[in-house]
């Protein structure tokens, strides 16, 4: 009976939904391959765990930044290609602050070098000894400035770039946002110079290295900081959407903008709130991303953007939980892909998953459920 | 072929080939459009529920029913915009169920839309010229390399397009962007454009909605003319009087079902119809 049932279900799956069947087959093959690699000693459990952990951390960043993108995508109806550069802008603003404070306002190096986050190798983050434990004040201040600066940037951009053509449809807005993206990105490069800088001293971040099964896995204080900050903010957004009037209005608007105009939800206020929340989270994610990975470059946000789009699409545009879950999935895919494919293709794998999803299930995992 | 199996009418059980023999060849000549057991659901809503009817060649048949009765959805299922959940649609003796819209149109069954859908950033003439079938210049290589060939046909098509615009009295708008037309003019354009595809049969979804009375009069005249030339029409319309006066047969839909069909008189006096309309409106 049982097997017959399974066989029948299987047949139905293959005929009704060949793509899903294909994905299941691929998944099974991948799992078998991992087992094989474990058996032959090509890979250790600890390594897999490290990769998954790395993916989770990345996923938190992507998810956090994805919430803002998803909200503007559904409420304002356009894919904002400048979103990645909001992340970078927030990171630079925040890190300039962190450097300034950690560098004791010029005591360690010239104020200019600190404010430019050590442009051209004039100051090194490692030399300032920045991390959550030794310079908590600098980190927290940086976080707050990153948040505030990105909010200001998002509002400014909306006021002068997007609002004037808000009525002309998603595609003109998308094209405009590409212009904004390049303007911001290269402005940052102009001011902060094109070099990639280390912001924290590699290895100097306090960590624990427990041995798990067959090897040691590293968990740092910055992992913990990221979990606390990202988790807390995600919870905050959840409460905001579920418990407040503003949250309800935002959900209504993402479902149907014209409807909420008729029903008298103050659209402009909701839009502003969207930019504030989205921008704030984005700035924080940029700052935390840099804290976590320890390097900062003018291109960071752009490189992250497509992964964020992937997460948002995966989760279903407009769904905040979708963005979070999508972020985690994409983060883990991008990190663990190296188990099976050459590392050069890890990011490509994440994009590939996104393309597949767009084609198979463009409405995302959380389709049919309204925002939140 | 699960549609064929699930069909409930005893006369039409079996395979599709049997179906055609059941209908007989004589039928095919007289009945271009033949629909059975059509069903379409959207999520929880059953928009069309076991609808079946046929349309005779060279007639104007009306399809009426209250708002949401499933008329447009029926059109969409016939013309391939939606794939029906089950049921059969035959056109000129061949099964066209589930074909792509362009395949249906190329077989000579062409529809217009309830809300006129002009190609707004193209001129009226351009709109018209999209329609003709089998244009040589639709092959990319010919458009680039064999201009003479293409041009020759283009001249013919341009002439036909002007004639048809003349026929509908919108030739003065030929150079206008379709988006600048009034609602009524768009309806005319849609019909004119559909005609240029050389159809056998036209499905018109509320062709008179938003058309002013004078224009409506003229449009009706044109449709009568065309019917006399041998075109077949299936028309969805809310204006009862108009349907009753102009159609030889009327099909009434209600909540996805075919409530009844018959001559205007029969339908007018049908209790169910009266109830459906009154019930729907009260």
């Amino acid at each position, binding site marked *: 009976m049982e097997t017959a049932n399974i066989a029948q279900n299987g047949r139905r799956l293959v005929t009704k939904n060949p793509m899903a069947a294909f994905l299941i087959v691929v998944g099974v093959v991948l799992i078998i391959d991992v087992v094989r690699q474990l058996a032959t000693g090509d890979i250790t459990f600890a390594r897999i765990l490290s990769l998954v952990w790395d993916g989770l951390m990345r996923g938190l960043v992507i998810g956090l930044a994805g919430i803002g993108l998803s909200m503007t995508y559904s409420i304002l109806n356009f894919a904002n290609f400048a979103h990645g550069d909001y992340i970078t802008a927030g990171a630079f603003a925040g890190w300039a602050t962190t450097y300034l404070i950690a560098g004791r306002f010029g005591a360690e190096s010239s104020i200019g070098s600190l404010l430019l986050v050590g*442009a051209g190798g004039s100051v090194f983050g490692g030399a300032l000894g920045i991390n959550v434990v030794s310079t908590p004040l600098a980190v927290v201040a940086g976080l707050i400035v990153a948040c505030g600066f990105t909010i200001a940037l998002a509002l400014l951009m909306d006021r002068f770039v997007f609002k004037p053509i808000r009525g002309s449809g998603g595609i003109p807005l998308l094209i405009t946002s590409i212009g904004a993206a390049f303007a911001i*990105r290269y402005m940052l490069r102009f001011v902060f110079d094109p070099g990639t800088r280390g912001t924290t001293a590699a290895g100097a971040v306090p960590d624990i290295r427990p041995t798990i099964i067959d090897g040691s896995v590293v968990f740092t204080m910055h992992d913990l900081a990221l979990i606390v900050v990202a988790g807390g903010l995600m919870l905050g957004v959840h409460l905001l959407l579920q418990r407040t009037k503003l949250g309800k209005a935002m959900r209504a608007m993402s479902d149907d903008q014209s409807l909420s105009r008729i029903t008298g939800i103050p659209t402009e206020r909701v839009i502003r709130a969207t930019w504030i929340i989205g921008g704030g989270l984005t700035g924080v994610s940029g700052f935390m991303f840099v804290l976590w990975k320890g390097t900062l470059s003018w291109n960071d946000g752009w490189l992250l953007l497509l992964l964020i*789009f992937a997460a948002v699409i995966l989760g279903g545009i407009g769904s905040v939980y979708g963005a979070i879950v999508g972020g985690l999935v994409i983060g883990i895919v991008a990190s663990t892909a190296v188990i099976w494919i050459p590392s050069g293709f890890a990011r490509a794998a994440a994009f590939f998953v996104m393309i597949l999803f767009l084609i198979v299930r463009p409405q995302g995992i959380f389709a049919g459920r309204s925002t939140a | 072929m699960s549609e064929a199996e699930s069909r409930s009418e005893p006369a039409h059980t079996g395979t599709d080939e049997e179906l055609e023999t059941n209908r007989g060849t004589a039928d095919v000549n007289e009945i271009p459009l033949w629909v059975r057991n059509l069903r379409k659901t959207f999520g929880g809503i059953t928009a069309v529920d076991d609808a079946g009817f046929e349309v005779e060649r060279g007639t104007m048949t009306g399809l009426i029913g209250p708002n949401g009765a499933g008329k447009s959805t029926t059109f969409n299922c016939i013309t391939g915009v939606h794939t029906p959940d089950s049921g059969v649609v035959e056109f000129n003796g061949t099964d066209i169920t589930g074909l792509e819209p362009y395949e249906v149109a190329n077989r000579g069954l062409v529809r217009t839309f309830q809300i006129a859908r002009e190609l707004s950033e*193209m001129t009226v003439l351009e709109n018209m010229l999209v329609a003709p079938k089998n244009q040589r210049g639709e092959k990319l290589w010919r458009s680039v390399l064999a201009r003479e060939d293409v041009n020759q046909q283009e001249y013919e098509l341009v002439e036909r397009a002007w004639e048809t615009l003349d026929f509908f009295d919108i030739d003065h708008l030929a150079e206008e962007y379709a988006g600048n037309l009034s609602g009524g003019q768009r309806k005319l354009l849609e019909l004119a454009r559909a005609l240029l595809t050389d159809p056998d049969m036209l499905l018109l979804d509320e062709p008179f909605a938003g058309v002013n009375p004078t224009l409506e009069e003229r449009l009706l005249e044109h449709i009568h003319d065309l019917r006399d030339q041998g075109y077949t029409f299936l028309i969805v319309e809310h204006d009862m009087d108009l349907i009753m006066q102009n159609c030889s047969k009327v099909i009434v839909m209600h909540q996805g079902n075919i409530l009844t069909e018959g001559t205007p008189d029969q339908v007018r006096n049908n209790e169910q119809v009266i109830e459906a309309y009154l019930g729907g409106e009260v």
Partner: protein
Amino acid sequence: MTDTEPDGEYAQRDDEEAVSLFGITFPNDGTMLLALLLTTYALYMIAGFVIGFPVRGLVNQLGQLTFWIALFAMSALALNLQWGYTGLFNIGIVGFMATGVYVTAILSKPVYGTGTSAAQVGGLGLPLSVGIVGGVLAAGLLGFLAALPALRLRADYLAIVTIALSEIVRFALLSNTLSEGTVGGYTLGLGGGNGLILDFTDPLEALIRALSLPFDLVTGQDGFLWTEIYIGIIVNGISVFTPGNPKSVIDTFAYAAVLLLILGGFYVLLRRTGNSPFGRVLKAIREDEDVTNALGKNTNQFKIKSFVVGCALMGLIGILWFGTQGSVTPNTFRPRITFYIWIALIIGGAGSNTGSVMGGAIFAAFLFQGPRYAKNVIETVLGEPSAPSSFAQAVAPILSADIVPFFLYTVDNMRQLQLVLMGVVLIVLMHRRPDGLLGHRKEIASSVPLDRPASNKSLASDGGETDE
């Protein structure tokens, strides 16, 4: 030119209609484009002369300017086919360009060990013409693969898919795995992060040698046009009057001229494509795909054709662009190149072929090459001053009212700033001139004039006789 006389409001042929650009009205498109080009060259020359730029440098600049104008105009034309006509939102252009030039490289690089760069991976050693055809086909094929599933997607999703695809292409080019390997006895590869040295015959030389075939038959010489005419007469002739070897400058010019010719070919090809029943269906798809389908057009097929042709052309442009640069590296193919081409298209107005050429020219002259030229000129004038090395050093003196360091820093970093400028220009265009600088253009998609046929003129509203 007989039907220039406006036929009431029915002046059909867009290229004979008056156009207005920057507030100046031109009798037709051709004059407008010519005036635009001449003005551009004049501006460049005036700037150069006033500053006292060396003649050789100036001439070289003009050659390069032509190169960029031709390339961006071609690119905008190809993109116009996809976006302007069909409404397919491709922001992965650079991926198709990379595919084109990389495949050409693999096909036409000398076999491993025989080329000038023996240390590098080799190629298949095929003639450049074969390589180019292969590159174009490969770009088209990639377009086909992308189009198959992507056609069902909304425009914004297609945008995301195409840009992701172009990044996947770049990752593939970067990857160590594909950088080197042996296939069927050949040592091939994409070169990884180091890229590939393009040690095949120089495209210009290859072209002239190919053209030389009939002459070679007559003269019995190999590459007569190249050795005797081009090198022997033109290059040597000019070198009599100039100090130093002028070959590189002449090469630049000759290649730019070839590109202009190819641009002409593009224009004819895309105009014919647009002004035809094929182009009409594409436009109809852009306006309303469902309606077009309901009128009996297999819209997917048209979309695929349009997308594939556009991508193949982009592949060709990639070859023409990067094939003469001596080498290619993956990180050249970043999305900013796609961004350039979109700006060029938006300047000219999506949907217009003439506009695309104009947009490409304006973009190349004033947004792309202009700032670089300005930097060049300013630095020459100021005698190659040394600019501050960081923004802080540039800004600090402003407090003491010294803006020179900031100015120098700005000039020095022109390449960054020019992208900021482009971004701003794109935003302003989308706000003020979303239809392009030429405004909304009525380019009619048909291969013949749509005037009412003479035989039909007398027919009034009495519509007795119709089709069939």
